[in-house]
């Protein structure tokens, strides 16, 4: 079916992950930071699927499944937190969220 070397997918996933990391470090908006996390997760999923392909096993796909489920849970809780944050302090910029210091 596919003639693409699996390693290419891995490279792609690495690139995406790296971009996710960069986004995670640079973005200031809590929600965007969340998104970059999702991006990283996606990159990892791609790697999983690629490996599943390479080793001709389904476990990788199962893991992807679980990753997605967990991501869903995380998003639910995280966004609830974000909403509370926005209600309590009028900005979502992490620059403002320096309470961790105290």
């Amino acid at each position, binding site marked *: 079916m596919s003639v693409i070397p699996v390693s290419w997918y891995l490279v792609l996933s690495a690139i995406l992950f790296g971009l996710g990391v960069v986004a995670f470090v640079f973005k200031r908006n809590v929600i965007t*930071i969340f998104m970059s996390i999702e991006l990283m997760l996606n990159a990892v999923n791609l790697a999983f699927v690629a490996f599943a392909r390479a080793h001709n096993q389904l476990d990788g796909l199962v893991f992807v499944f679980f990753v997605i489920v967990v991501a869903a849970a995380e998003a639910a809780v995280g966004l609830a937190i974000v909403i509370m944050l926005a209600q309590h302090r009028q900005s979502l910029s992490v*620059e403002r969220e320096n309470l961790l210091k105290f």
Partner: protein
Amino acid sequence: MPILDHLWIILALPLAGAAINGLFGKRWPQSAVNSVAVGSVTLAFLAVAELVREFTLLAPDQIPYVGRYFTWMVAGPFKVDFSLQVDQLTVVMLLTVSFVGMLIHIYSTGYMAHEGGYYRFFSYLNLFMFFMLTLVMAANLIVMFVGWEGVGLCSYLLIGFWFLKKSAADAGKKAFITTRVGDFGFTVGVLLVFATFGSIDFSAIFKAVAANPISEVTLTTICILLFTGAIGKSAQLPLYVWLPDAMEGPTPVSALIHAATMVTAGVYMVARMNPLFSRAPIAMLVVAIVGAVTAFYSATIGLVQTDIKKVLAYSTVSQLGYMFLACGVGSYAAGIFHLMTHAFFKGLLFLAAGSVIHAMGGEQDMMKMGGLRSKIPITYWTMFIATLAIAGIPGFAGFFSKDEILEAAKSGPNANLILWVLGVAGAALTSFYMFRLVFLTFFGKPRYDEHHIHVHESPKNMTIPLVILAIFSIFGGWFAAPKLIGGIDYFEKFLAPVFSMYAPPMAEPAHVLAESTASPEMELLTALTGVPVIVAVLGLLVAWWLYIKSPETPKRWAQSLRGLYLLLLNKYYVDEIYAALFVRPLLWLSTNVLWHGVDEGVIDGVVNGSARVARASGGQLRRLQSGNTRSYASWVLIGAIGFSVLLIALYVKVVH
């Protein structure tokens, strides 16, 4: 064989009682606490009785009967099972302990009725029973040691029962620390035993020592060390000082722990280890000497004490001395015999004293008593019987046992006349100060303010134990009665297997020699047999003359022999000497070196230093915690990258 198969039940009962009372007793009414405490001990006693029944059915080769329960600890060759054993010696001890313990529990329900911390008292008491029984039933030195330390702990707790009273708390500490000195020796002894025999199981040790004789030096060392423990626990010279102070505790405690059971642990231990001692003559001699000297020495102190309990305390010390004397001269049976009878009459004496104090409303000074005979008859009669017993008046329990001891000292396997003389002198003094006590307390004019103190007989649950114990103080010794008419000593015969099984070949039972036929000095010795009785009666008469006939003579003597009198009154200044020799140097050392030097200098220095370092580094690291999430993120990133670099580097190394 329900009990024999489940020896642990005997231990479990008092332990359960202690736990229940300790945990829940605080909320409960006294009746509930009573039923738990007394109930558990009574059940334990019944269990022991049943045990004895089953024991009698055992074939001789089944004795000692050992019950292994679980492996407690294993460290290389060092393996300790939690195992209990039963043989004749154990049986005797079990009966004595559980029986007297039960009676004293009952007595306590009356005596402590109006005290605070009621539940606490009984929980301690049950705990003590548990440990004491463990000590007695132990099948190896370690389990025995557990019981050994356990009873020490309980004695500490109970002496300091009224811990708000400084003297009580101090007495508790004193007892604990002093015995600890001995226990140190004991511990080393145990280790040495293991090092020598490669095991700490009694049977194994004894077999080993019986099979291949080992160097006498080692054996002697071991025995001396073990005996140090006994000295501490059984309050012999020079470590007796804690026992008189221990009288700060409640009287039942004095009766149970410091007269009947715990203090005799040392004797029991020596008797238990008899195969070792029998092979170490020097150690035996030490034991004998210590015993005899203590017996005499503390008797002399007892002469002039005015505190009723103090007198009893010193007499206890001296009686214990007799027991060690017995063991020392190789007649363990006599020692154990005296241990048992002593448990009866000394327990009785203490309980009676307690009853007196109870009647006097807490007064302990005999000089402020007198003439109580008619007011508290039961107490009076029982105490009088006990006195006759301890004084060794023929027909009473104490007579038989003490007589056997002196007999052994006179003509036993390793007899020694000097010891015998000391013993006899001690006996004379004993009878004197005991009757002195009785006369001062019950006879003559009341020397207290009758308007304020309303003397009253104690309640039933106190008097009944007195009566029972009195009966035993009379008949408790009659096992040995037949011997007087050339028969055999059933007690000795019963215990014989324990002491003969691993006995060294040359040692025969005592009475064989005693019956050996007439050579001149044998004539003399047999002639001397009656002496103890004579001196006992003598003591009685002197006491009678001094304290009833002409009560003012003692004061005159005290004036004339002022130095001696003060010396005795102040117990030979031993406490002061110890204070000067050990306590103050120790205090100085611990204050200046350990406290100001080690503790403040080193330990606090380390602690504060590390704290300072932490604060300094924290001050620097604080900058990292900018509170800026993204910086944290980048730190995580850095870590992750470093880690993955590491991983991949390793991977590459593996591949190429």
